[in-house]
């Protein structure tokens, strides 16, 4: 079940946002890495692995998700930000999935798996950086859920996720809702 739903989301996203990309690449048990084809790092995470270990809600129960809220997206503890490291675009003139004026939205992102305390379900969040402007400097958050190291880039929140853009200066980070995991 999990697998199927994720696949459907995955395909929607792949079509809508990413063009074609490796089926092996789009899915990891930590969620989806959304990316424009030429930039997306293909990683050896097999479909079987992913289906074998669905991302159950209990795995998502972290100190962050147990303390998060759904009412103010300009605070670091807003539920979608469980994996955010950086300035919240919602505090920089943008929104949870909108870049501030003059910035460029990244075509790539890292991914978080956050619990929405309203329905206690787990959702995939795509963290896209907004690029090409000096650091916004407002609402700096350094949340850590599932943040991996550089050798697992799709869930690393230190990377400047501005691949392939004219300028990769970091301005702020968004947190777009991708879909439900369970």
């Amino acid at each position, binding site marked *: 079940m999990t697998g199927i*739903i994720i696949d*459907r*989301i995955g395909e*929607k*996203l792949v079509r*809508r*946002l990413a063009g074609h990309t490796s089926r092996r690449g789009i899915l990891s048990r930590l969620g989806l890495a959304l990316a424009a084809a030429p930039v997306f790092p293909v990683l050896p995470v097999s479909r079987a692995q992913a289906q074998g270990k669905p991302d159950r809600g209990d795995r998502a129960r972290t*100190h962050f998700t*147990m*303390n998060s809220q*759904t*009412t*103010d*997206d300009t605070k670091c503890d807003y539920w979608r930000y469980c994996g955010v490291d950086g300035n919240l675009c919602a*505090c*920089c*003139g*943008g*929104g*949870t*999935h*909108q*870049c*501030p*004026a*003059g*910035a*460029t*939205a*990244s075509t790539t992102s890292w991914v978080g798996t956050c619990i*929405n*305390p*309203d*329905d*206690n*379900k787990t*959702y995939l969040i*795509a963290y*896209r950086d*907004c690029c090409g*402007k*000096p*650091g*916004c*400097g*407002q609402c700096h958050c350094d949340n850590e859920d599932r943040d991996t190291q550089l050798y697992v880039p799709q869930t690393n929140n230190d990377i400047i996720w501005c691949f392939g853009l004219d300028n990769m200066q970091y*301005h702020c980070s*968004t947190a*777009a*809702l*991708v*879909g*439900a995991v369970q």
Partner: protein
Amino acid sequence: MLSAKTVFQVTALAALAASSPAIAQTNGIASPLQRVSPTGAVTIPQAEIPSVGTLGPVQPHWVFVNRGNGQDGTRIFDGDSGKMKGMVNMYGQDSFAFDPLGKNFYVAQTIWSKLDRGTRQDSLLAYDVHSLKLVAEVSIPGRMLIGNRTHNLVITSDGKKALIYNMQPSSSVNVVDLEKNAFEQKIELPGCATMFTNTINGFSALCSNGTLATVAMEGGKPSITRSAPFFSATEDPIFDTSIVDSKTGKATMLSYSGLITPVTLGATPKIDASWSIQQAAFMRKGTYTPMDVNWMPGGRQPIAVHHATGRIYVLMHMGEYWSEYEPAGEIWVLNGNTHRLIARHALSGELKDKLVNIAVSQDSNFQVYASDGSGNTFVLDNQTLEKKQKMENSGGGILYTVQP
């Protein structure tokens, strides 16, 4: 301790779950719950598409905080909400100016092709006020590198010319034609700087010999006329962040010692007698002599004027001469028309002995803005000078507000 907190939260979550739809609506933030089907089964939410916003019309209560204190960019804050609206890309000693026609934000920029080496590139940049995208870039032959100045990049009141101050090797002004987006000419300006736009097609500037130079730019050859000396550029300098109302050409020149000289700019500037803000406050006139303590104006941007009412706000501190950059212990409010003191406001808490920049909005229900040069910008009530908003990590430089 952590686990205790967690237990509490788990309980709290149960409560949340019940009332969640209401909560999910607040703040206008979409929640997946809004996509629950009538049967109660959670359907797969549509993924949100990334987008880029645009800036609404520039508001009188927006304060533009120039870069500094380790932060690049000029941040735009809404003084009513204290929220950041956007940013104009700026670096180093870049200068900022509004467009009287309201189409662009202008930046005079100096960069090198390899950041700290390579080829120097001086240019005037135009950013669209809505998209904040770079819409024009005009190369210019050099500009002066200095921070915290308000009169090194000025736009003529008709919005057709950008004037960029330069000192390479001697004082001059580089003129950019904003209709053709092209460099037009270099005007020599020996011994003068700090350009104030006037109501004619030209500008005036303060000079080291205590005069005011006025440059008329009609026709091809610019003509320069000079006033009689009216201040001492070395004994009691006029702050080069002094104020001009580009609509009327009325300038309010403030000197280190606390003298205000009203000047009406134009083809032939009218320079009125100066008056002492200390005398207006029933005190001994400020003198700029050794070992003499008094209340003195100070800061990087020590004066602001609300043009419609003629109210003057000055950052004041107790000091001797050569204390021109000291932060303020009080803000004095004066009437520029009657030359009378309206009020003295002692600053307290995080405002005391911190403020070095002050500005006001130009609408009727105007706000006062002040900053400490260390990243904190405050919105103050124009009557009580009470703190209304605090913007942190806002940048450390000059404060700009749009003219009506």
